[in-house]
């Protein structure tokens, strides 16, 4: 394999490998992980590729250690990443929280499989979407993005690093087994066409520097270890100096800022794509491996004259709340096919505030929806509307 960081050209690779290539193209030079199906190919690709670009690959003793090592490497100045699946994602949760409170940029790729527990190691699931949102203890904001194809595994992993570096936060790439194991063409553009963002570092004198004092962006400007600022970084509630201050007043100040730095900038973070929303009465809300069967179902329904549109969530967290709220005033129903029993559907229902119906099309995992299941789900809603009209 060539030693260049950006392997410009067309490749026939799977989503896991595309994610690894995206990471390296974004400047990732540290990977710590632990083998787990169906995410292992991310680690294997990194193990093969990182030495050639002067990066470090290390297989840790477990996922707890992997996440800790990623945080340590990030403070050593590296763009750092790990990849895992359900069981490992559960183990990473505490240190993801450490990454949030210490404002450590890093990327976690979760190739979701069926759960709970060991569940379906080799088969698809999307049951970790709410864990991505709330899995670590305490109240916080997180960024999670959801690729739906190998090409998006490449593109979105680059975006994950850019978001992590911009907002100083762990960013979750919530893929799944189908997206991770699909092999198809992935086009890697020339390096100069890839937008790469690097964290901003302090330049002022260390004597007057306050690590967690922020300007209106609410994002702190932090040095790496060894830059001469002699900072203290702690998982305890801290003040602008970074010193532990465990009282209600400092807690409110710190937690509010951690939440606001994401909420305030959500327009920059939230990314989505739409199809046929103009005049649509029913909106299919979809992400990850559910996107393709949903697209197919939409085309089939539209061929039958049903006014159905599509909303593809590229960013899942923070949630596209404003958009759903706006759409709820115009449409009759949201239909949410996902490989769980309705996690994102709950969010859609909450944001629609009773103004439009929300219908979940569940799947327990082990595969993805057949387009017909989604078509049937939409038809059920149409029949329900018909009955309602007749009763009137």
């Amino acid at each position, binding site marked *: 394999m060539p030693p260049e960081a950006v392997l410009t050209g067309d490749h026939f690779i799977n989503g896991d490998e595309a994610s690894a290539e995206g990471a390296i193209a974004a400047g990732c*030079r*540290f990977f*710590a992980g632990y083998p787990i199906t169906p995410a292992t190919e991310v680690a294997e690709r990194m193990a093969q590729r990182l*030495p050639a670009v002067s990066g*470090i690959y*290390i297989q*840790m*003793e*477990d996922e*707890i*250690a*992997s996440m*800790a*090592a*990623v*945080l*340590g*490497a*990030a*403070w*050593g*100045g*590296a763009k*750092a990443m790990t990849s895992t699946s359900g069981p490992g994602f559960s183990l990473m949760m*505490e*240190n993801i929280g*450490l990454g949030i409170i210490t404002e450590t940029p890093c990327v976690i790729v979760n190739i979701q499989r069926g759960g709970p527990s060991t569940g379906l190691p080799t088969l698809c699931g999307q049951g970790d979407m709410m864990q991505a949102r709330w899995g670590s203890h305490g109240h916080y904001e997180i960024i999670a993005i959801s690729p739906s194809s190998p090409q998006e595994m490449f593109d979105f992993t680059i975006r994950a690093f850019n978001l992590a570096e911009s907002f100083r936060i762990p960013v979750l790439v919530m893929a799944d087994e189908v997206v991770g194991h699909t092999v198809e063409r992935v086009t890697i553009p020339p390096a100069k066409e890839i937008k790469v963002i690097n964290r901003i570092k302090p330049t002022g004198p260390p004597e007057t520097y306050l690590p967690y004092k922020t300007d209106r962006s609410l994002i702190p400007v932090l040095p*790496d*270890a*060894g*830059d*001469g*600022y*002699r*900072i*203290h*970084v*702690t*998982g*305890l509630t801290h003040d602008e*100096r970074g*010193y*532990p201050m465990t009282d209600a007043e400092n807690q409110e100040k710190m937690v509010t800022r951690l939440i606001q730095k994401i909420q305030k900038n959500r327009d920059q973070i939230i990314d989505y794509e739409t199809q046929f929303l103009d005049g649509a009465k029913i909106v299919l809300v979809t992400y990850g491996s559910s996107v393709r069967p949903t697209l197919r179902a939409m085309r089939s329904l539209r061929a039958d004259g049903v006014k159905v549109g599509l909303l593809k969530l590229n960013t899942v967290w923070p949630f596209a709340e404003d958009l759903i709220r706006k759409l709820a005033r115009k449409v009759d129903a949201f239909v949410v096919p996902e490989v769980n029993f309705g996690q994102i559907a709950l969010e859609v229902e909450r944001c629609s505030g009773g103004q439009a119906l929300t219908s979940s099309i569940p799947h327990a995992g082990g595969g993805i929806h057949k387009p017909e299941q989604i078509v049937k789900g939409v038809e059920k809603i149409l029949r329900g509307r018909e009955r309602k009209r007749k009763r009137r």
Partner: protein
Amino acid sequence: MTEKEDLLRHPKDDLLREDRIPHIWCAGCGIGSAFSACITALQKAGTEYDRFSIVSGIGCSGRVAGYLKIDSFHTTHGRAIPFATGLKLAKPELNVFVFSGEGDLFAIGGNHFIHAARRNVDLTVICVNNMNYGMTGGQVSANTPIGAKTTTTPYGNPEIPLNLPSLAAACGAVYVARWLSLDVRRLTQSIQEALMKPGFSFVEVIGPCPVAFGRRNRLGTPLEMIKLYNENSVIKNNVHPDETIIEEGKKMVLGKFVDIQRPTLLEMLPKMSDAGGTVWPDKGIVTESRDG
């Protein structure tokens, strides 16, 4: 600063976050002496302070990172070693050391210790063993002696404690020493040697916890407690680490037990790249020499 002010400064002030004093440690606690020895070792090391980074876990000893005026990381419970591993590998020019307690490093974090020593990551681990979980009020730890009373062993501890120097040596640590917090000079010397030694170094500091541990086992005042530890210990440099087990009726063995050379993980990595995957099993790479 005036000359008078300069004279009034404590010689360790340049490495103390003075604005964080008073510290949380109880009177008579062994952590203070270990912390002080650590500062002296850093001052004597002759390396720029900005090149040092300290990583701690959670607990009384885990608070050391917050008082030391260098780049300092106070991480999650048990995870200081893997955090330090990432930091060291990402920025090899840093001298990274871990300072934490025995509950943090060997109970919840035991697996990480084993593997960092095995990999020979160039880290120094300083462990204050106070034989219980002090911060949470004195519960049994992996190093509480058999029969000792703690809040969670009210009838006495039925479990055999870990022998830390033996574990460290078995896992491949290149430097292993154990001292009492009373042995400030020897301890300082050991920490300094460990900090300068390439590879995974381990220094155990046995320190009294008079408030949480001593009180429940009727070990007397802090002074009486450290006297007891001192009278019941003996220095035996270079003995086999297996002979350092702390047992009833035997003196605690102190000293430097291991000081060997072994290529570090960062020294091994480029050899793998150059070897092109053909080394194992024929062209054996020398990984250990007892000559020190």
